[in-house]
């Protein structure tokens, strides 16, 4: 616990480009940027594939493969390929890694909607887009959010590792602390990252509460 005191108690850790607030902001920036880009690619694609039912196998297989890809390997590969002048060598692998969970869950969510329901919607005169937007997406939302959450968890973790390649973010405290035997920095940084991850997790739980209809989550009790 003294490590935590040492770390959080040191005013030098609270200011400047290497301070906690800046690092936190950087971490947030990389994570949000990567997740946003991934979502922009994966959600429309997942909706399309789920809705039309074409290409599902490719999605599932590639998602399985992507789980096997080592984060650190990708990071190093892109840094070697593109250099460290911009943040893209880090953002690209982050996006690559977070597309599959969103894609698969969106796809599975849409595809898993009871065919009767889809039928009923068409039978009532909804057009293709309306069926997707008004019925399939709300019903598949829990899975879509799950995909986003899994990706977010992964992005936060990978952003941490990305500090190894000289990028900012909370991973700096851990990696620099490790190199300089400053265990207070290691512990403090780790705790910050863990808290960050938990807040992300909590955020998604709350988002789920707010956006998913109680009729789908079945959270209401009868009577």
């Amino acid at each position, binding site marked *: 616990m003294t490590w935590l005191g040492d770390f959080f108690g040191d005013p030098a850790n609270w200011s400047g480009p290497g301070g906690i607030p800046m690092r936190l902001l950087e971490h947030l920036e990389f994570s949000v940027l990567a997740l946003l880009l991934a979502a922009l690619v994966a959600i429309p694609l997942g909706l399309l594939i789920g809705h039309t039912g074409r290409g599902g196998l490719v999605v599932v297989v590639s998602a399985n*493969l992507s789980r096997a890809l080592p984060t*650190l*390997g*990708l990071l190093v590969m892109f840094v*070697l390929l593109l250099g460290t002048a911009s943040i893209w060598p880090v953002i690209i692998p982050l996006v690559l890694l977070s597309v599959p969970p969103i894609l698969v869950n969106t796809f599975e969510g849409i595809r898993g909607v009871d065919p009767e329901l889809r039928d009923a919607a068409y039978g009532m005169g909804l057009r293709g887009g309306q069926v997707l937007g008004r019925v399939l997406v709300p019903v598949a939302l829990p899975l879509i959010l799950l995909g986003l959450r899994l990706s977010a968890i992964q992005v936060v973790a990978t952003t941490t590792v990305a500090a*190894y390649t000289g990028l900012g973010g909370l991973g700096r405290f851990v990696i620099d602390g490790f190199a300089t035997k400053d265990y207070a920095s290691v*512990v403090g940084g*780790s705790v910050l990252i863990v808290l960050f991850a938990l807040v992300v997790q909590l955020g998604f739980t709350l988002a789920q509460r707010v956006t998913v209809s109680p009729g789908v989550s079945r959270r209401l009790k009868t009577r």
Partner: protein
Amino acid sequence: MNDGPPTIWEWVARNWDTGRVGSIKDLLGDHLVMSLVPIVAGLVLALPLGLASVRWRWLYQPTAGLFNVIYALPSLPVFMLLISVTGLSKTTVIIPLTFYAMAVLIPAVVDGLGSVPDHVRQSAVAMGFTPLRRLVRVELPIATPVVLAGLRVVAVSSISLVSVGALIGQGGLGMLFTRAYQNPFMPPVVVGIVLIVALALVADGLLVLAQRLLTPWVRARRAS
């Protein structure tokens, strides 16, 4: 020795087995140890916990919640925090990976046992199975496909996660990445990625094979 960097094949040939520490073969061995131990240990630990969660239903929510949280923790800081307990050793990588494995496998065990239709369970009781025998002969076999599906996820992600351990000097094949970063050179990165993915695919394939052998009734379903 000629000038200029070797091709990827030359590099592999030179470094596959140098007989010294850090050869590819050596790293591969480390990698296997650090990924297989969590898979096996995760399963061994998840089984009793899953069973307990089914027996005492109140246990499931807190257990699942806890492991859900654990699963969300990034591996690097967890490795780092664990150093104060286990030091700079393989154990530091193995322990968190075991917990990640449990986070996937406990729900799999619970779902697997939940996939045993109630009427099947009732039948077993009515036929005079004792509880233990029922568990071993009826419930666990029926739960196997679901548990194996979870195990496949665990195997693949454990194998790829080990590489992060390179940042504390315990990465198995991940060490190829840090090495290639310090002395910028692509072949080790490519070889590392390829070997890790291949390892994951092999593990996955073996589990699929196990699934076929252990659960012929599932395979039969696909065939018909």
